[in-house]
């Protein structure tokens, strides 16, 4: 299984903070995104936002980053701390 987490505006738009995915069908971060977009129109629209960032196991990564069972994959908007 892969643990998927969402933060900030993205979490609110999706109405979801965390979900688990079977790792069978996904090789990359982009695969996870595609799978999530299949849930419904709202998820698809929300993930159409090209400025969203992704991280695997707490490191910022690009969409072609490989994922494996046990990974924590995060999606979130550009950061605004400081």
């Amino acid at each position, binding site marked *: 299984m892969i643990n998927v987490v969402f933060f900030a505006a993205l979490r609110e738009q999706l109405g979801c903070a965390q979900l688990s995915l079977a790792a069978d069908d996904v090789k990359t971060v982009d695969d996870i995104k595609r799978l999530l977009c299949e849930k419904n129109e709202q998820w698809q629209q929300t993930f159409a936002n090209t400025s969203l960032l992704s991280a695997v196991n707490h490191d*910022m990564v690009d969409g072609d980053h490989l994922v494996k069972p046990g990974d924590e994959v995060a999606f979130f*908007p550009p*950061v*605004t*701390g*400081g």
Partner: protein
Amino acid sequence: MKKHNNLAEISIQTDDFSLADEVALLEQDNLTDGAVVTFTGRVRNHNNGNAVTALTLEHYPGMTEKSLANIIKQAKERWHIGRVKVIHRIGELSIGDQIVFVGVTSKHRQDAFAANEFIMDYLKVSAPFWKKEKITNAGKISENWLAAKDSDNDKAKRWS
């Protein structure tokens, strides 16, 4: 310099912090570093023309610490600096409240200035924090997630 194992370089906390206490820790048993540069960021009462009344800060536990540790590591590789402390608050904050503190000591001031600004510039674009503002616009109160600024990306790029 005496080792100071009890001084964690990174703190993500809901509580406020004391600038004086933090600087005292940076200077304690540290007589080799003559320069101390601090940055403190506070909640302003205005942003993009709107009156801000409060701020909520969300973060990604675990990744935030890892990200900040990586930024500090890079700063230490680029400049001759002594001690570093980064504090970032999370949760509900009010106008005037302290949000973030970066303190850097060094033998020569130029290193402390550069490393401090470098840490802030990278924190702004790569540490997973998000601000939600409560604003009053024409008498109406609303809550908005802040949009990231291109200028912050430009500032971070200066260093590469």
